[in-house]
């Protein structure tokens, strides 16, 4: 491989990069040759471990605790990444939270926090980096969910926010074209801290697998591969799309399941 000039070293910014899908994305991007700036909320130990994987791949890591829905904090983090790395080629908005279980259990405070963290935070991640991305003709990948595509009565606020993410990808794709591409991935049931409560409960775990035609839970890496593809030059004519990464889950409505 030819050695490349430092000004060709590509840089990614990932929100929610210390755990789950975001962490897998950080690690995969580093292996693909990116320096990576990532945010985390509170788990500094996981953030350090993620950063160690980045540096283990021979790339640089820059990470800070950031409230992903606070416009000023996100802008401050982007400025820090800009100062550290000098450019930005890819933004992946992965920070997310779920709310209380049950359609009638969501408080108005929780509507706000679920929407702000999952959806509004993704908007700020793009808004505060758009001018950097325009310079490099970069790209954005937003992490949505199949909850944004199908009924999810257990998590009505989360599902509505993720449907918002899919919409946001379309509008931002239009707004930032032709320089910047914006796409989303919609993961199904992926084994992360967010879903550990269900995965660790044998009956819930098995019930979920019955709805997945591929016959297994997803791993964070399954989603990270899709993100890496959409961020890459191989996806140069793809924008505004949502790629479903769910083992076929959305195909498997009730009448479509094997009995």
């Amino acid at each position: 491989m030819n050695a490349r000039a430092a000004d060709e070293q590509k840089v990614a910014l990932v929100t929610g990069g210390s755990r789950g899908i975001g962490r897998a994305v950080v690690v995969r991007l580093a292996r693909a040759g990116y320096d990576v700036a990532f945010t985390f909320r509170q788990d500094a130990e996981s953030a350090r471990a993620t950063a160690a994987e980045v540096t283990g791949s021979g790339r640089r890591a820059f990470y800070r605790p950031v409230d992903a829905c606070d416009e000023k904090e996100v802008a401050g983090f982007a400025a820090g990444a800009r100062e550290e790395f000098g450019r930005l080629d890819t933004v992946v908005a992965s920070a997310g939270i779920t709310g209380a279980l049950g359609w009638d259990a969501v408080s108005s405070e929780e509507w706000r926090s679920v929407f702000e963290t999952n959806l509004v935070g993704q908007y700020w991640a793009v808004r505060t980096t758009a001018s950097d991305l325009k310079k490099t003709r970069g790209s954005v990948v937003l992490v949505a969910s199949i909850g944004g595509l199908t009924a999810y009565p257990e998590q009505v606020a989360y599902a509505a926010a993720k449907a918002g993410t899919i919409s946001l990808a379309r509008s931002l794709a239009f707004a930032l074209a032709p320089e910047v591409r914006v796409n989303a991935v919609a993961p199904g049931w992926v084994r992360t801290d967010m879903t550990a409560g269900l995965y660790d409960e044998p009956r819930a775990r098995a019930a979920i697998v019955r709805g997945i035609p591929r016959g297994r839970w997803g791993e964070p890496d399954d989603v990270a591969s899709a993100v890496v593809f959409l961020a890459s030059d191989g996806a140069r004519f793809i924008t505004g799309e949502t790629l479903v990464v769910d083992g076929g889950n959305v195909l498997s409505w009730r009448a479509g399941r094997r009995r």
Partner: protein
Amino acid sequence: MAFSYSTLFLPGSVFDLSDSVVLVTGGSRGIGRAVVLELARAGADVVVHYHTREEAAASVAQEVRALGRESMVVAANVAKREQVERMVRAAGEWKGRLDGLVTSAGVYRGPSIEEVTVEGWEEVFEKNLGGTFWAVRAAVPWLRKAPAPAVVTISSIFGSHPGIGGAPYQMAKAGVEQLTRALALELSPEIRVNSVAPGFVRTDMNRGAHEDPEFHRAIARATPLGRWGEPEDVAPAVRYLLSRESDWVTGAVLGIDGGIALR
């Protein structure tokens, strides 16, 4: 090492297809040809199907060999089920295996409803939809024996968005998308089936359209990314969807259209 197309898509890095045999229908020209070459760069040995352009197919096969992979060509009219079955058998028997199938053979006709003839209707349905279905059906026994089998169908932006003229083509492509979902479900968990839906891509199929300067400009202007697609814009997605890296993706339809359908 910087992150770029050339490094990301090297064999052995990611989206690798080493040690696999893939049949690409309609591989002599257009999107199919770009797919053949992309898969060869990913490390696959490729069977190149063609209908009438034997020389073009032979030249694509030669390009595959120049990339260090093996290739053979096979002729068939995909409107004829027996010929499709013979094509798939030849592809499978070549190396005694078939790991992937890409159904890129197709034909576009854009008549108004009054101009649609029985022959035109049959041609468009048999080639685009029948040709895809019978190829997948014939490939299933081979694919079931493969370690990580995958099918990628080629739909079109006209499979989900209407245009004026060519209703049968649009209906056939909508059929390809539903075929993709139906078979993704039915063939799970063993065989993955996904689709890509290209927008306006410059190929022989629509030469009349993109060689008309006014239409060419109009489409480029209407496309958020500001240009027509090239066959090489479609091929990497097919590569990703055939690779083990997309092991948890099935039944997906991925638009590759520069954003032209966004509004």
